[in-house]
């Protein structure tokens, strides 16, 4: 049925991603006719059932959108609700939020670098198989990941779905003495993080660049727990204008919505976008790491996103150490957030990219409407475009090798398909 030159590639279930997805590619001769990333993760309807819940509930509920980046959901939710109620959380409480989020960046990036992505570069199906030949390397990755999880467990109570986050701050804040042991763990992790940069810099990267616009938060510091959305083309807008600049539309084959920038169309969010827009805000040590990795002012090769993640791990550890060193326990664990009628918008930088939340509250603080735009759905069009160009340049490969490279191209984005509403099923149809 399949001709020699016309073919379809079909990866039925993507591995080493979070969630469930499939990929379909149709090729006619040398022309790539269609590329679809099909996120078939079952819809879970968070935006629908948040209606009628109290304004105090979204941090616990939206954490359940993703087990890998719950703090991102908790932070964007808190910031949106605080904005709706006219409350600003700053000073030591915001620093603690940033510290908890550093823990999530370290844990999530280490998971992606070592367990999900590196096996692609070294030719193993997964980290467990890789450990048979590179046990020390995998153990280093697990130590790094554990360091991030330890920060989350101390500050958040547990690493998956932390319990200590609330609208207005925390239920309980640590003493200086409680944070001190974290500093020792993080100082050791810094050596592992720098070794990770050196290790990943030695990988063989395909010569491939992408033309997408970027979208990331910007501000006084490298963006993690907040900031102002800004595009690579230089447009900047307040979080409450997000939906005027980013519009989502549904495609028939996916439960994740696609997002576009007004006037610009396709764009990229995540480590490459953050780095391009905020490189000068990295710490001196992280800048050194970027130089060690051979990164310039920006990185447009999605296969090198693993390098930028490794640099961000160095930054997150360095920043966590700075925050611990400067920590003075706040007078109270949270700021009161009395409900009022209104709408609030909240943004933060999940490890995979910008995460936007909006909530409308009634006078009693009950939620009347919720909107959540996760990074993976924003990146979906960019991933598809990369695949289209990558497949067009790799048609000499047989289906199995082509499918493998496509999966790798998707994993460059660390797509969190659970968020979008995880894994790749690839179909290549050649005719």
């Amino acid at each position, binding site marked *: 049925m399949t001709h020699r030159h016309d073919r379809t590639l079909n990866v039925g279930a993507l591995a080493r991603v979070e969630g469930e997805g499939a990929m379909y590619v149709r090729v006619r001769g040398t022309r790539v006719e269609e590329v679809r990333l099909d996120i078939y993760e079952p819809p879970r*309807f968070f935006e629908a059932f948040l209606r009628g819940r109290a304004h105090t509930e979204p941090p616990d509920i939206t954490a359940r959108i993703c087990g890998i980046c719950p703090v991102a959901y908790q932070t964007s939710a808190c910031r949106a609700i605080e904005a709706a109620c006219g409350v600003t959380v700053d000073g030591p409480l915001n620093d603690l939020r940033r510290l908890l989020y550093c823990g999530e960046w370290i844990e999530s990036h280490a998971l992606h670098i070592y367990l999900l992505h590196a096996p692609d570069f070294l030719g193993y199906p997964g980290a467990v198989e890789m450990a048979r030949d590179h046990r020390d390397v995998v153990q280093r990755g697990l130590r790094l990941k554990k360091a991030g999880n330890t920060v989350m467990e101390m500050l958040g109570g547990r690493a998956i779905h932390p319990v200590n986050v609330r609208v207005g701050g925390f239920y*309980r804040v640590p003493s200086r003495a409680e944070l001190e042991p974290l500093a020792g763990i993080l100082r050791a992790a810094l050596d592992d993080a720098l070794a990770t940069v050196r290790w990943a810099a030695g990988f063989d990267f395909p010569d491939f660049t992408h033309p997408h616009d970027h979208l990331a938060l910007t501000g006084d510091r490298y963006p993690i727990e907040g900031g102002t959305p800004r595009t690579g083309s230089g447009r900047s807008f307040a979080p409450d204008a997000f939906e005027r600049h980013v519009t989502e539309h549904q495609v028939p084959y996916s439960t994740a919505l696609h997002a576009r920038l007004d006037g610009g169309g396709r764009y990229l969010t995540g480590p490459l976008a953050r780095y391009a827009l905020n490189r000068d805000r990295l710490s001196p040590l992280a800048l050194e790491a970027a130089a060690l990795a051979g990164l310039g002012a920006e990185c447009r090769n999605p296969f090198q996103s693993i390098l930028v993640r490794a640099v961000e791990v160095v930054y997150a550890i360095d920043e966590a150490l700075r925050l611990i060193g400067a920590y003075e326990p706040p007078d109270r664990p949270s700021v009161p957030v009395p409900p009022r009628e209104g709408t609030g918008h909240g943004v933060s930088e999940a490890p995979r990219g910008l995460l936007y939340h909006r909530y409308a509250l009634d006078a009693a603080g009950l939620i009347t409407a919720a909107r959540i735009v996760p990074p993976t759905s924003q990146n979906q069009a960019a991933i598809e475009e990369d695949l289209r160009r990558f497949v067009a340049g790799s048609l000499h490969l047989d289906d199995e090798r082509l499918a493998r490279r496509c999966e790798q191209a998707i994993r460059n984005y660390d797509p969190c398909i659970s968020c979008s509403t995880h894994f790749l099923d690839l179909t290549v149809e050649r005719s």
Partner: protein
Amino acid sequence: MAEGRPRLAVWKFASCDGCQLTLLDCEDELLELAGQVEIAHFLEASDAVADGPYDVSLVEGSVSTPADRERIRHVREISRTLVTIGACATAGGVQALRNFADVREFASVVYARPEYVATLARSTPIAAHVPVDFELQGCPIDRRQLLEVLTAFLLGRRPDIPDHSVCFECKRRGTVCVMVAKGTPCLGPITHAGCGAICPAYGRGCYGCFGPSPAWSGARPNTRALLPWLDMTPDETRRVLSTFNVTAFREEREEEQDHDPPA
């Protein structure tokens, strides 16, 4: 190559990935475990997939689509032992909130074209579809409990997962009762142990993410006596019982309604 080692499979249905991530979060034990068992199917960790049958299947997530309703039957057929992990797989999860609403209306809130989305009206636990050998509760599950369950099934014994409530763990941890000392509403008395009583240790009440206790003996706590003691309005009580384990806490919700019907 893997002759003789028990074969482990990990499956995902509708969920957040947090429970299977718990296995990868066993940083100190993961490589040793991988030496003891053949990880034959674990898509989050490896694209090497060995065909079944499998000795132990860990199943995360609830059944919420027509395709998944068929897939869980297949997973059961190729699994000697099937263990569900987490609130989604054991009680339908947070996505079971649709069970008390009109799923078409839900879909219309999220999707411009709800007809493109294949979904069931209800999100149901795995045991509603196939026989389950053991259910491990939690949202997310606890790492220590997961290692105990895996060890037990690999050794061919019953897992030693205590049936008591969060209150026992709180006492063991030496945390002062937040309900007695501060009047903070706390679901600890009616919630299954396993997390280590984290919430009270962080100064908040338990929000019931491990579901009702005890799950196996059938002897539910005296919820009727306990709920009024929680010092919550009926709306607050209903909401806190209607989150991560909404279907598992159904009896408690009904008792609450008997006791104090909504205005």
